[in-house]
């Protein structure tokens, strides 16, 4: 039954200092799905991502990835196992150029443990230029990340996760910090990039236009659990969701 599931979070619980950060949270994601996680501001949607990617370890419950139990496994092993992640605030090597960031991701995938060939002459470096091309950042490849605007950093952050060729990617608010004019363009690019590697995607999102347009499934995070899930139409028309999440 679980074979077709890429990710399955089962009854995750975690509390620090009396605050229940996760309280019986469960979610199942099928291969190829694009799942949006929405929820009220400050509800701790990132906590769920952190639990699934090993940054936080649940006190009870289990996280299954492609049928294997990855509960309590270190983030770097989870990353090597095929789960990529981008962050709400991009986590980049600010002093380096865009391509250097990408090349480090490439080297991480291809084997970082070599100390002879300079990174900039990595035999597969063209692949990274291609990937930057797909997401439309080829022109800034040689610019230091520090000089780029937040929206571009966001994309680079995602591109680094994609460079690992993950089978599942978590994206934490991919369009935050991007002007509303650009967000659809960016999402289009990302969806294209996901298709490129047949990657399953889970993204935390607060923009309902983006959610309704790109998600196959929507899950509502509220009270430390997935309180409701369904198709975008079902969920976005739910009266509770309309009141507490969307705010109409």
């Amino acid at each position: 039954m679980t074979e077709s599931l890429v990710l399955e979070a089962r009854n995750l619980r975690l509390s620090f200092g009396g605050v229940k950060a996760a309280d019986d949270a469960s979610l199942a994601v099928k291969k190829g799905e694009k799942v949006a996680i929405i929820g009220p501001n400050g509800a701790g949607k990132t906590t769920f991502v952190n639990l699934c990617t090993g940054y936080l370890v649940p006190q009870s419950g289990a996280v299954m990835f492609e049928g294997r139990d990855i509960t309590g496994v270190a983030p770097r092993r989870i990353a090597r196992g095929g789960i990529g992640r981008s962050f709400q605030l991009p986590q980049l090597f600010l002093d380096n150029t865009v391509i250097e960031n990408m090349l480090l991701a490439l080297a991480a995938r291809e084997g970082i443990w070599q100390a002879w060939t300079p990174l900039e002459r990595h035999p597969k470096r063209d692949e990274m230029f291609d990937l930057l091309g797909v997401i439309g950042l080829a022109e800034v490849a040689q610019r230091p990340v520090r000089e780029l605007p937040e929206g571009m950093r966001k994309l680079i952050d995602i591109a680094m996760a994609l460079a690992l060729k993950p089978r599942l990617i978590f994206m934490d608010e991919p369009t935050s910090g991007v002007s509303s004019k650009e967000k659809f363009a960016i999402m289009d690019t990302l969806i294209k990039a996901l298709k490129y590697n047949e990657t399953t995607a889970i993204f935390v999102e607060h923009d309902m236009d983006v959610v309704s347009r790109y998600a196959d499934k929507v899950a509502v995070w509220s009270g430390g659990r997935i309180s409701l899930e369904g198709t975008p139409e079902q969920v976005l028309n739910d009266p509770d969701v309309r009141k507490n999440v969307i705010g109409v």
Partner: protein
Amino acid sequence: MFLQTVLLATLDGLSYGAQVFLVAVGLSLIFGVLRIVNVAHGSFYAIGAYVAASFGLLLAASGLSPWLSYPAMALSAVLVGVLLGGLLEVTLLRRIYGKEQVLQLLVTFAVFMIFEDLQKAIWGVSPYFVNTPLSLLGTVNILGINYSLYQLVVVPAFAVVVLLTLRYVLRSTRIGRIVTAVTDDREAAAAMGVDAAKVYLLTFMIGASLAAFGGALASGSTSLVPGMGSGMIILSFAVAATAGLGRIEGAAVAALMIGLGRSIAVYTAPEFDVLVPYLIMFVVLLIKPQGLFSVPQTRKV
């Protein structure tokens, strides 16, 4: 027999532990607020001791009451802390708060080197010893062994007074709460509109005064020699790290541990008394990387 050894070791370790505590607590306080590991802290200890000794000699020469040597110790601690500590903070440290922690550490390392020469230039190289405080109070006999009241009671008592005062000030006064707030969460405190520059200066002067006070107390029972600060800084560093940087009560416990550890070693394995503080520090850091009394801090992504 074992209990007696422990009791004697405790009595022996008290004075030493108390002095180390005074120096370490200043180091810890400064780190907590300024986030600087102040290598020059050992110099404040040494200079405090020399200034107190000079006062002591002055008192002896002027024929005033020898009991004045106690207030003179406090006075020299404050003088060193406020004048020299203040000068250092205002002229140098203030300019490096934005820099990498390690660079700050190196700047204080440089200051330490300069202070070493300064001490020699002012006080020369002959050992100073002013025994007025030590000989003034006499001895008490415990289990057939004479202890000097100065080492057994006065020095530890001062340490306890300092500890209690610090606790009171940090918890129950406005300035203390500000200092605590800065120690616990720098950004939040800055956001609350705390005048960081003032808090830093004040903390540094207090921390330096504490080190100088530790030195002043030491001047009553130990020789003042060139290089005395270098040994003390590394020891108080060990205490502060064992306790967890920024932890006041922790420093007291760690200083006692190190004081006791050393004297127990002299009783049981005299070969290894020198190793004790570093071994304690090493083992504690292995088990609790942030020190015994550190508050766990979770980083968010």
